[in-house]
């Protein structure tokens, strides 16, 4: 049902001074009496950092939780792969960090396209996350005195990043998973693994349950609840190749969108500068090399195209390129930040030098990340202690030894800042439907800073939703909608019909084949740099490909068994719709900001040029039906505390 004409987005940002908003809000919102919490049931989709922390915390409070994931175990959610670390404004290093500074850096890093109040709250609760994780037994890195160790990460000028080797996401997720497991044992969480949500059900305008498919038996099932929380991760895999896990997808968020939840800033995607370059057509995913490598590695390409050509043909070795013939372009262009400029800036510059023909590697789409100076300065042992596992991983994948020859890297799709629009309570525009973690749009604006996604996922799950959901539930009757309600039957039928449609098509092309082609269109026209012309062309290409997808797809097997190609086909179908919306959003935003670079809008020296007068808003899109253009709603962003400036890292 379309929203009525005078619908206004209400972010529900509490009034009062920035530093007091959250405390005041916690006091003002309704509470559910401890004895009554057990009368409510909450569905949580996802067991990543956001979902696992939310499920555990809600269950500890006394709510009954039903949690879902599509992997065979909750512990395998994509969050497990995060390497570098998690930010928190602890100021343990006495180097001038504070809640305000983390807030400021995050708003600035996001190129002024996020909400001040949300970001401030995120910075405030960041300190609690570290306490929580340590109490769970997360073995963060420590100093000789036994206190926690920090590093500077992703261009921050203070050391506020906590880490556990290069496996911070793993350790934080295992912490949250252990808390979740404890609640499973206590009977407060019912865990459904290998079960995928395929629709959300809305009755009387409120979210009241989901329809799922059991991935082993194929059974389609309905579950009702008093509220539904989505923590289903990001949609970077719309590009086919990304650093995301193979299964990461947009389906849960997209189904919510189709049922009325507005989708915000879909075109804001993050391209990470340090990934292992593509090696061939068969490539199934891209591997991230942690950003921390930029602390010691120096990025360069040859000054001269002819030298790059020789390197590409292997007629010359990188170490034979004389110092004078190398262009350490980040250090040259950004003397104060050097190799540590934010991700969007580093990525775009890598693309530029490769477009000039100075790229290296067999495809010419790579730049060097060179550790030889660091090894000469600190010794191999020191570098090995810091990055050993990353160097091993690089060698395993490429067959080259980064202690002896520079690494080669190239940008790759990594994270999606866009996602379901949520208010300050993390509720979408559908009452009772919440979105946490990467699947919402909330805190990172147009560009996410390193080590801030783990922080946001856990902030949302441990410290925000447990409070804000009470405000909604306290107003709901104990009796929940029955899963036999007509609305569930209709949703189940919709799911079954779309499965049948895919299975009965019996076309010629495989899902991967379509997905690869879709991803290529997105990467070429809606990736690191975009133009109105390219986006117009891409939109038509996506439409045409979608028409073919709906006629010519080949899915083998049946609906009532483990069928991995069917799972994939269902996900790719939603990627097609999302792709078009991303293109429309990128086209509408006539400015460059953060990860969104429109070639038409740049400063004379090639930096992103924002248009604060006309685009200082969140673009929230409303779904109006199959094949119809979506409707744009705007949430204006007010900056009371942070002064809008041109980001400069020079």
């Amino acid at each position, binding site marked *: 049902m379309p929203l009525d004409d005078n619908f206004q987005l209400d972010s529900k940002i509490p009034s009062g001074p920035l530093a007091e908003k959250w405390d005041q809000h916690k006091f003002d919102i309704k509470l559910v009496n401890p004895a009554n919490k057990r009368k409510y049931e909450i569905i949580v989709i996802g067991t990543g950092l956001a979902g696992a922390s939310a499920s555990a915390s809600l269950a500890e409070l006394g709510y009954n939780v039903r949690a879902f994931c599509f992997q065979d175990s909750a*512990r395998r959610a994509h969050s497990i792969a995060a390497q570098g670390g998690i930010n928190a404004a602890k100021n343990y290093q006495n180097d001038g960090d504070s809640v305000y500074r983390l807030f400021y850096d995050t708003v600035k890093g996001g190129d002024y396209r996020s909400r001040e109040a949300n970001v401030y709250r995120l910075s405030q609760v960041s300190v609690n996350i570290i306490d929580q994780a340590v109490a*769970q037994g997360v073995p963060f890195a420590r100093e000789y005195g036994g206190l926690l160790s920090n590093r500077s990460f992703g261009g921050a000028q203070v050391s506020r990043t906590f880490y556990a080797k290069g496996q911070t996401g793993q350790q934080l997720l295992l912490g949250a*998973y252990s808390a979740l*497991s404890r609640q499973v044992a206590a009977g407060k969480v019912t865990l459904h693994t290998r079960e995928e949500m395929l629709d959300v059900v809305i009755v009387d305008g409120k979210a009241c349950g989901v329809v799922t498919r059991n991935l082993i038996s194929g059974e389609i099932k309905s579950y009702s609840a008093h509220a539904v929380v989505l923590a289903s991760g990001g949609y970077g895999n719309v590009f086919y190749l990304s650093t995301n896990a*193979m299964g990461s997808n947009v389906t849960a968020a997209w189904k919510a969108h189709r049922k009325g939840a507005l989708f915000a800033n879909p075109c804001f995607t993050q391209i990470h500068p340090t990934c292992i370059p593509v090696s061939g057509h068969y*490539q199934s995913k891209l591997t991230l090399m942690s950003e921390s490598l930029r602390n010691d590695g120096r990025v360069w390409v040859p000054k001269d195209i002819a030298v790059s050509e020789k390197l590409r043909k292997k007629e010359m070795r990188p170490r034979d390129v004389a110092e004078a013939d190398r262009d350490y372009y980040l250090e040259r262009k950004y003397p104060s930040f050097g190799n540590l400029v934010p991700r969007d800036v580093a990525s775009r510059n890598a693309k530029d030098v490769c477009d000039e023909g100075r790229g290296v590697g067999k495809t010419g789409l790579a730049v060097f990340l060179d550790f030889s100076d660091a090894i000469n300065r600190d010794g191999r042992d020191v570098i090995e202690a810091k990055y050993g596992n990353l160097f091993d991983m690089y060698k395993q994948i490429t067959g080259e030894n980064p202690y002896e020859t520079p690494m080669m890297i190239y940008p790759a799709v990594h994270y999606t800042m866009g996602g379901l629009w949520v208010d300050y309570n993390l509720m979408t525009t559908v009452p009772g439907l919440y979105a946490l973690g990467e699947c919402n749009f909330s805190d990172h604006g147009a560009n996410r800073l390193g080590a801030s996604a783990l922080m946001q996922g856990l902030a949302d799950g441990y410290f925000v939703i447990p409070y804000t959901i009470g405000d909604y539930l306290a107003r709901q009757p104990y009796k929940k909608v029955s899963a036999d309600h007509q609305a569930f039957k209709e949703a189940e039928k919709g799911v079954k019909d779309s499965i049948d449609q895919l299975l009965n098509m019996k076309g010629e092309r*495989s899902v991967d084949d379509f997905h690869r082609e879709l991803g290529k269109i997105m990467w070429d026209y809606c990736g690191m740099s975009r133009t109105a012309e390219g986006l117009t062309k891409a939109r038509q290409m996506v439409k045409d490909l979608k028409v073919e997808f709906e006629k010519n797809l080949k899915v*083998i097997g049946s609906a009532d068994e483990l069928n991995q190609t069917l799972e994939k086909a269902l996900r790719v179908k939603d990627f097609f719709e999302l792709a078009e919306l991303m293109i429309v959003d990128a086209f509408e935003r006539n400015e460059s900001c953060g990860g969104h670079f429109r070639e038409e809008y740049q400063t004379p020296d090639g930096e992103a040029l924002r248009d604060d007068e006309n685009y200082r808003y969140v673009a929230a899109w409303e779904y109006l039906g199959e094949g119809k253009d979506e409707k744009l709603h705007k949430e204006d962003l007010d900056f009371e505390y942070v002064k809008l400036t041109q980001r400069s890292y020079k």
Partner: protein
Amino acid sequence: MKFTLKIWRQAGANQSGELKTYEIDNISSDMSFLEMLDVLNENLVQKGEDPVHFDHDCREGICGMCSLYINGRAHGPQRAITTCQLHMRSFNDGDTIVIEPWRAKAFPVVKDLVVDRSAFDRIIQAGGFVSVDTGGVPDANLIPIPKDTASEAMDAATCIGCGACVATCKNASAMLFVSAKVSQLAMLPQGQVERYSRVEKMVAQMDEEGFGSCTNTYACEAECPKEISVTNIARMNAEYLKSKFTSSDSFAGKS
């Protein structure tokens, strides 16, 4: 490169399975093992045959979802990596490669190469946690932890729960997996309060799931993609023994 693949095909949990032979050509040495299987599956789909089902997700050696018994070894011929990190350059052109699922009573086959490892989750649910609720915990720097202790705990915590230890053990014992979690928490101050009840509960659940006993062959350590050390098993045995002299958790370790 060109290979002959002999792959375990089994349509479902209650059906019998068999090794089927497939020929595959034009494989690049830079391809990962799972990408090679992707190519095979693409070919099978073109021919209208059911693709080979296998578990995978992160494809970078950290989620623990991929498995596969390759030429008689868990995660294939190389040490200290998972199947998803294995590349075709580790094989010779023309090789025959036998690919089977994890085999253990506690890990029943779901389909083809996919097995059910939920027993591991139930062992963690039995006690693999510190019983703290969200909020109300002390400041993270309140309790200093010696750097070496923290990093030893980290080494144990690095386990990805893939199940290679079980698959490779002739007794299908889960001791390496269980002991890694027990050790991590036993070494850290936060794990002390429930130290003894934890090991008892986790071991009891492990036995109930039908994993075999440990006869110290150390095959698990040799095949573990994360090189989890068998010293964890020794530590767990000691913890278990101590727990038997302890009626319940207490600060003295005995009461």
